[in-house]
C-alpha cells in the first residue's frame, strides 16, 4: 500500500523542526521560509497546524503545467517538480486549490512536497509524531481528499 504524510495537529507544538528538516533536505540549509511543509499558528485557539501537499489524485498542479514539469513518481504517488523543466510561470501555484505549490523567487522555480523519495525528512524530524508517514488510508487523509473533490472544476461525474 502507498504511504502518505499524516498530520495530527493535536500533537504539534509548533517547534518547526519539520520546516528546518524540509529546507535542509532540499536546499542544504535551515530555512523555514523555503519549507514545503508549513506550520500555522492559531494563536487564539492554541493550536499549531502543519500543512503540506496531500499528493491529491486530481493533481491540478500537474495538469495545469504548460511544460510538463510536474510528473508523478509512481513509487510514492508524489507529484514532483522537475526544476530543470519548470520555467517559473507559476500557473500551478494558482491552480492548486490547497495552496501547496509555491514560487521561490530566488530560484525562479516553483517548489512543492516530493515526499523525499519515500523517506520524508519532516516526519523523521518531528519530535512528537504529529507528522508521520503511514499507510494512505489513515485518518485525516480521506477528509482532505473529500475536500479536494469539492474543489474540482468539473471532473466529478454528474456533480
Amino acid at each position, binding site marked *: 500500500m502507498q504511504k502518505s504524510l499524516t498530520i495530527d495537529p493535536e500533537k504539534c507544538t509548533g517547534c518547526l523542526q519539520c520546516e528546518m528538516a524540509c529546507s535542509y533536505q532540499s536546499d542544504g540549509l535551515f530555512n523555514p521560509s523555503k519549507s514545503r511543509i508549513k506550520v500555522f499558528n492559531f494563536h487564539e485557539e492554541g493550536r499549531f497546524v502543519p500543512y503540506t501537499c496531500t499528493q491529491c489524485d486530481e493533481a491540478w498542479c500537474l495538469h495545469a503545467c*504548460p*511544460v510538463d514539469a510536474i510528473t508523478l513518481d509512481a513509487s510514492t504517488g508524489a507529484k514532483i517538480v522537475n526544476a530543470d523543466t519548470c520555467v517559473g510561470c507559476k500557473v500551478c501555484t494558482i491552480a492548486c486549490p490547497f495552496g501547496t505549490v509555491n514560487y521561490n523567487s530566488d530560484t525562479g522555480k516553483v517548489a512543492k512536497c516530493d515526499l523525499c523519495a519515500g523517506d520524508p525528512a519532516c516526519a523523521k524530524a518531528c519530535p512528537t509524531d504529529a507528522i508521520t508517514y503511514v499507510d494512505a488510508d489513515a485518518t485525516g487523509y480521506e477528509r482532505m481528499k473529500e475536500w479536494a473533490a469539492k474543489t474540482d472544476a468539473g471532473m466529478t461525474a454528474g456533480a
Partner: protein
Amino acid sequence: MHHVIIGAGPAGVVAAENLRKLDPTAKISIYGAEREVPYSRMAIPYFLIENVPEQGTHLRKNDRHYDLMNIEVHQQRVDKIDAAAKALSLEDGSTVNYDKLLIATGSHPVRPPIPGMELENVHSCWTLEDGRAIAEKAKPGNTVVLMGAGFIGCIILESLAIRGVDLTVVEAENRMVPRMMNEISGNLIKRWCEEKGVNVRTSTRVDGIEEGGDKALKLSFNDGSTMEADVVICATGVRPNIAFLEGSGINTDEGILVNPYLETSQADIFAAGDVCQGLDFSTGSYMVQAIQPTAADHGMLAANNMVDGREQRHRGCVNMNVLDTMGLISASFGLWEGSGGDRSALEDYDNYRYLELQFEDDVLVGANSLGLTQHVGVLRGLIQSRTRLGKWKEKLMQDPTRVMEAYLACAQAQA
C-alpha cells in the same frame, strides 16, 4: 472510433492524452496549424530571456511521447468542417473523417485597425515564430515600443528589458493589465516598471505607424506626439480562432458556444480552451477565459465526454491569472472587481504589496494580489469550494493576509 482534435495547444494535447487513457483502442489525431512540435505559448517569454532552450517550450519533453501514446500529430491547418458528413477539409486539399471532434484552435492576436500594422518591423508576440523574430530584432540599444500592457505585454516586458532595449509601453486603458488587475494594483505595476527604467504611457493610443525617420518606424499617438522606434510589438489582445467555422452550423458568439458538457450546437463536436466560450464558475455565464488552467480543465472534460458512455457536467472554471511583471508577481481570481459584497484590502505602496478580497456574504468570490507567492492557490480553493467563512470573514475584513489561516480553519476544519 476516430477522435480528431483541431489544435495542438494545451487543451488539444491534454484532451488527446485523456482520450487515450479512457479509450485505449480508438484512433486519435491532432491537427495543428503551426509547423511546430506542440508547444506552450506560456513558455515563450522564458525562451526569449534564454531561460529555456526552444525544446523547453514543448508541451511534452519526450520526442516520442505522441508515438508512445499512439496519438497522431499532423502539422496541417483545418480549413473547413462538414458536420453533416463528419469530415474535415485540410489545407492540402485532403479530407479526414471523424467520429468525435474537438475544436481547440485557440486564439490569435488582434491588431488595432490603424495604418502601418503590416510593416516589416511590426510584430505580434504570439507564436514561437514571432518569438524568434523578436529575439532577432530586439537588440541592445534598439528602441522598442510595446503596444498593449495586458497579460502578454507584461509577461514579455522582462524579456525585452533584459535584452537591453530602450522600452516604451503604450496602453489605452488607465493602468497596466486592466482586464486582470484593479486600478490600484494596475498602477502599482506601472510604477514598478517605471522604476525599472521602462517608459509607460497609459491612457494613450497609437494612431498610426509609418516608415521613415532615423529609425525604421515612426509612431504617432492620439495626443499628437510622435516617436521613432526600431521595432513595434503588438500585444493588444487575442480573439478566438473561429473564422474557419463559418457555414459549419456551429454556433459562435465571442467564441464557440457550448452546453455544460462542452458540446457545440452540432452533435459530436466539442470545444475546449481559448476558442471555447465555456461556463464561468463565478458568474454562471459563458465566456472566453483564454487561460492555461481552463484550457487544461476543458481538455480533460471534453475528452471524457467524447468517449461513449461517459458524461460529466462542467461546473465552471474560476477565471484566474498569475503574472510576473519584471519580478513583481500579481494574481487575480474570480470576481476580482467585486459583485456588490464586502471588500477587504491592504495596500503597501512602498513595498509593492497589495491584497484585496471580495466577498458575497461570508464567501470569498474574488481576489487581486501583488507580491504574494506563498499559498496563493487557496484563494482559488476558497472561491471554488464556496466555503462559508463564518467568524473568519470578520478577521479577514480586519486583515486579509490571514487568508491561509482562514482557509485552514474553514476549509480544512483545522481550527
